[in-house]
C-alpha cells in the first residue's frame, strides 16, 4: 500500500507521508489496536478498533482542494507523545503475568444499556490544523478507545464525467455537494449508538469507494473532523461539542503553498489558481459561516494549548458524568435478590456424574492433568445440553429398514462459538467436537487490577455474526461483568439478543441474576450455580481461577 501511494502523483498537500510505513509495522505489532483492513478470505475480520482512523488515500491527482494527511491512515496512539507507540507502553510485565493497561472499560451501565459516546465535531478550513487539534485532544485526553472519523471517507462516488473534471483539477471537493450525507449520517448515528460500523474507504484515484471497508467499533469518544462538519443540521445535532478551528486565511494559504511546492513538487502558479478559484470561495461561502454553530472557536489551531486544555477538561467532566463503578455495582445490586431464577437460566440436571466431575475440578488438590481431563468432560456435557436448547422442527426420514421415522432436525446450521479469553477458550474444543466446521470468534476481556473493572482488548468475530446463533463461552461467571461486556459487544455487532446463549461451567447467583436481568432474552446455561462471591470477585466455594489452573499459569505460592 505504501508502494501504491508512492507511485502516484503526490497530492497537493499533506503533513507527512513518512508515517505510513510505521503505521504498518505498528499494525503487525498490535493487531488489536490498529487499523485493520479486511482481507479477502479471512472471515475473522471484525477487529476491535479501540482507536481507529479510516484508511483513506488522498486525492493524488485532483489538485489542491484538500489537505491530505498520511497520518490519518494510522491509529493515533492514546496519551502518547510520539506516534510510534512501543509495546512496553501498554503492557506491564511482572514475573507472573503480563498486564495490559489499555483495554476499553465498560461503555454501558449495569443494566447493560449503552451509554452514548461523547462526540466532538471539529470544523475548519482546509489546512487550518483540524487534525493537529484532534490529535492534541486525543493526546491530552489520555482516554483509550477514541475513534477519529474524517469527512474524507464520505466523498461521493463520481460519475465518469465528474471524474474527468476531477482529472483536470476542476472538481470542487470543497463544496457540500461533494459529500454523501446519507452515508455520513447513518455512520455517525450508529457510532453514537455504540454499534459496529463499516466506514467506506474512498479512493481518490478512481473517485469511488473501494470494495473494502474500514470496520470501526468501540469508542468512548468520537472525534469527527472535516471542512463541513457543521453544514448539515442533523449532523450538528449529533455532536456533543462543536469546535471551529479558525486559522487566518494567509496562514492557511502559506501552509498549502509550502506543502504543495516543497512536498508535492507543484508549481506556485497552479496552487494559487486552485486556491483562488475553488478553495477560497468555498471557504467564504460554506465553511466560514459555520463558525456560528461552534461552541468553541480555537484560533491558531493546534498551537493553542490553552484552548485545547479547556476542551480536554470539559470532555473529562462529561465522561466522568457518564462513568461508574460497574463491577461493584453488579456485585451489590442483585446480591440480595432471592426468589425464583428467571426462566432463561438453564441449569444442567445435577446428576451424580456432574457432581462427581465438579468434585474433581473444584478440589485444590487435583493435579492439572486430571483437572483438564475432568473439565473437558464437564464442558462436553454443558455444550451438549446447550445444543438441546436450540430450536428444532419435526422431520420425517426414511430408514434403511423401510419404515418412516418421525424425528427432529435443528432449525439452523448457523451456529458459531465465541469464547471469552482466556478461560472461555477451554470450551472451544468441545464446541468443535459437537458441531462440525463451526466458526469460532474470540473476545479478550481482562480485569483492570487497579479499578477492578473489566476492559475490552481484542475481538475477532465471524463475518455476518448477526445471522448466527452465538454460543458465548466463559468457564466461570462471577459478577458477570466480563460476560456482560462480551454480550454488549455481540449486541453492538447486531446479533439479536435471543440468538445468544451464554454458556459456562460455574456461575455465581448474583452474576446469573445481573445478566438475566440486563438481558432477559439471553439463555444462560451452566452446570452449577454457587451462592456467593468473595471480595476478590471469586465465586464461593468455586473453582479458583479456572484459566490459571487449566493452562498452568497460577502464581507460585511457594516462592
Amino acid at each position, binding site marked *: 500500500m505504501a508502494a501504491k501511494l508512492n507511485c502516484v502523483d503526490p497530492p497537493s498537500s499533506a503533513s507527512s507521508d513518512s508515517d505510513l510505513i510505521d503505521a504498518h509495522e505498528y499494525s503487525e505489532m498490535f493487531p488489536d489496536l490498529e487499523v485493520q483492513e479486511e482481507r479477502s478470505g479471512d472471515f475473522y475480520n471484525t477487529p476491535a478498533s479501540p482507536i481507529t482512523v479510516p484508511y483513506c488515500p488522498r486525492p493524488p491527482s485532483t489538485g489542491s482542494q484538500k489537505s491530505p494527511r498520511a497520518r490519518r491512515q494510522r491509529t493515533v496512539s492514546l496519551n502518547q507523545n510520539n506516534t510510534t507507540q512501543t509495546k512496553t507502553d501498554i503492557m506491564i510485565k511482572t514475573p507472573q503475568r503480563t498486564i495490559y493497561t489499555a483495554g476499553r472499560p465498560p461503555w454501558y451501565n449495569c443494566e447493560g444499556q449503552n451509554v452514548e459516546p461523547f462526540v466532538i465535531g471539529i470544523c475548519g478550513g482546509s489546512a487550518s490544523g483540524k487534525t493537529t487539534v484532534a490529535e492534541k485532544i486525543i493526546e491530552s485526553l489520555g482516554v483509550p478507545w477514541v475513534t477519529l472519523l474524517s469527512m474524507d471517507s464520505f466523498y461521493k462516488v463520481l460519475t465518469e464525467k465528474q471524474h474527468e473534471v476531477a482529472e483536470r483539477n476542476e472538481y470542487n471537493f470543497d463544496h457540500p455537494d461533494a459529500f454523501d450525507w446519507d452515508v455520513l449520517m447513518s455512520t455517525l448515528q450508529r457510532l453514537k449508538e455504540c454499534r459496529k460500523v463499516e466506514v467506506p474507504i474512498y479512493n481518490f484515484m478512481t473517485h469511488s469507494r473501494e470494495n473494502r471497508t474500514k470496520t470501526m467499533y468501540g469508542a468512548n469518544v468520537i472525534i469527527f473532523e472535516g471542512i463541513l462538519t457543521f453544514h448539515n443540521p442533523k449532523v450538528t445535532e449529533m455532536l456533543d461539542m462543536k469546535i471551529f478551528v479558525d486559522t487566518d486565511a494567509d496562514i492557511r494559504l502559506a501552509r498549502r503553498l509550502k506543502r504543495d511546492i516543497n512536498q508535492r513538487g507543484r508549481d506556485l502558479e497552479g496552487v494559487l489558481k486552485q486556491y483562488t478559484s475553488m478553495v477560497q470561495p468555498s471557504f467564504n461561502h460554506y465553511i466560514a459561516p459555520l463558525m456560528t454553530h461552534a461552541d468553541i472557536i480555537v484560533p491558531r489551531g493546534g498551537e493553542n494549548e490553552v484552548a485545547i486544555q479547556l476542551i480536554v477538561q470539559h470532555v473529562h467532566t462529561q465522561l466522568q458524568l457518564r462513568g461508574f463503578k460497574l463491577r461493584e455495582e453488579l456485585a451489590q445490586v442483585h446480591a440480595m435478590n432471592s426468589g425464583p431464577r428467571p426462566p432463561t437460566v438453564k441449569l444442567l*440436571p445435577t*446428576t*451424580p*456424574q456432574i*457432581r*462427581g466431575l*465438579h*468434585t474433581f475440578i*473444584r*478440589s*485444590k*488438590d487435583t493435579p492439572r492433568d486430571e483437572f483438564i*481431563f475432568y473439565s473437558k*468432560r464437564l464442558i*462436553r*456435557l454443558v455444550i*451438549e*445440553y446447550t*445444543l*438441546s436448547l*436450540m430450536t*428444532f422442527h419435526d*422431520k420425517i*426420514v*426414511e*430408514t*434403511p*429398514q423401510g*419404515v418412516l*421415522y418421525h*424425528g*427432529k*432436525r*435443528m432449525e439452523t446450521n448457523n451456529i458459531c462459538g465465541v469464547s471469552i479469553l482466556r478461560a472461555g477458550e477451554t470450551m472451544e474444543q468441545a464446541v468443535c467436537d*459437537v458441531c*462440525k466446521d463451526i466458526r469460532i470468534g474470540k473476545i479478550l476481556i481482562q480485569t483492570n487490577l487497579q479499578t477492578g473493572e473489566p476492559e475490552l482488548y481484542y475481538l475477532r468475530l465471524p463475518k455476518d455474526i448477526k445471522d448466527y446463533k452465538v454460543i458465548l463461552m466463559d468457564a466461570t461467571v462471577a459478577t458477570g461483568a466480563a460476560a456482560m461486556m462480551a454480550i454488549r459487544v455481540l449486541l453492538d455487532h447486531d446479533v439479536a439478543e435471543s440468538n445468544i446463549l451464554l454458556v459456562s461451567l460455574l456461575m455465581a447467583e448474583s452474576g446469573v441474576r445481573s445478566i438475566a436481568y440486563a438481558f432477559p432474552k439471553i439463555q444462560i446455561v451452566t452446570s452449577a450455580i454457587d451462592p456467593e462471591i*468473595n471480595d476478590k470477585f*471469586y*465465586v*464461593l*466455594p*468455586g*473453582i*479458583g*481461577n479456572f484459566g490459571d*489452573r487449566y493452562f498452568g499459569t497460577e502464581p507460585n505460592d511457594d516462592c
Partner: protein
Amino acid sequence: MGSTDMDMGLCNGFDYCKEYRSLKILPANDQIKELQTILRDRNTSRSDFKFYADRLIRLVIEESLNQLPFTECNVITPTGATYNGLKYRSGNCGVSIVRSGESMEQGLRDCCRSIRIGKILVESDADTHEAKVVYARFPEDISRRHVLLMYPIMSTGNTVGKAVNVLKEHDVKEECIILSNLFCTPQAVQTILDSYPKMKILTSEVHPVAPNHFGQKYFGTD
C-alpha cells in the same frame, strides 16, 4: 426424569419404565432426537453417521456412569471453601460385545481414561440362528466389579442374553451389570428384563424398529 421417561415410553406405545424399573431411558430432548434422526436416516453419509453416532454414544456412556455407585465426599476449593461433592467407587469395568459394541469403547475411554475393558464375541449359527459365544476375555477380578456391558443395537435380545450368561458364569452379580445401549426394541427389553430382572438397561430409545444397519455403517462394511 420420570415424566420424560414415561412420555418416551408412552409415545412408543408401551409404558416400559413403569413396568420395568431397571430400564432407564436417556432424558429425552430435541438434541438427542436429532441425533437419533440422523442415525436412522438412510441418506446420512458415513462420515456424518460416525460423527453423530459418537456423540450419542458419549451421551449414553455419560448417563450409564450415573448408574454406578458413589459416596459423598467434601473437598477444599482453591478459594478455601468446602464443596460437598461425591466420589465414584473404583472397581468398575467395561465389556463390549464384538463387533458393534466396540464402537462404544472409545466413548467409555474418553470418560474413564484407564478403565479395564473386556470383550465377548457372540456369533449366530448360520443354520439354526442360535447365538453362540465363541470368545470371551475379561479382567481377572471381574466378579468383584460393576460391569458396563456395551452393545448399541438390541433387536431380539438374544446376543445380550448370551453375554449376560457368560458374565454370570464368571460370577458377576446380576445387579452389577448395566447394559449401555443406543436403540432397543420393546421385545428385547422384555426378553432381557424378564430373564434378568436385577440388571439395568440404559438406552436412548425404545422403538419397535431397530436400526440394524448400525454396525455396518459405523465400521464401513456395508
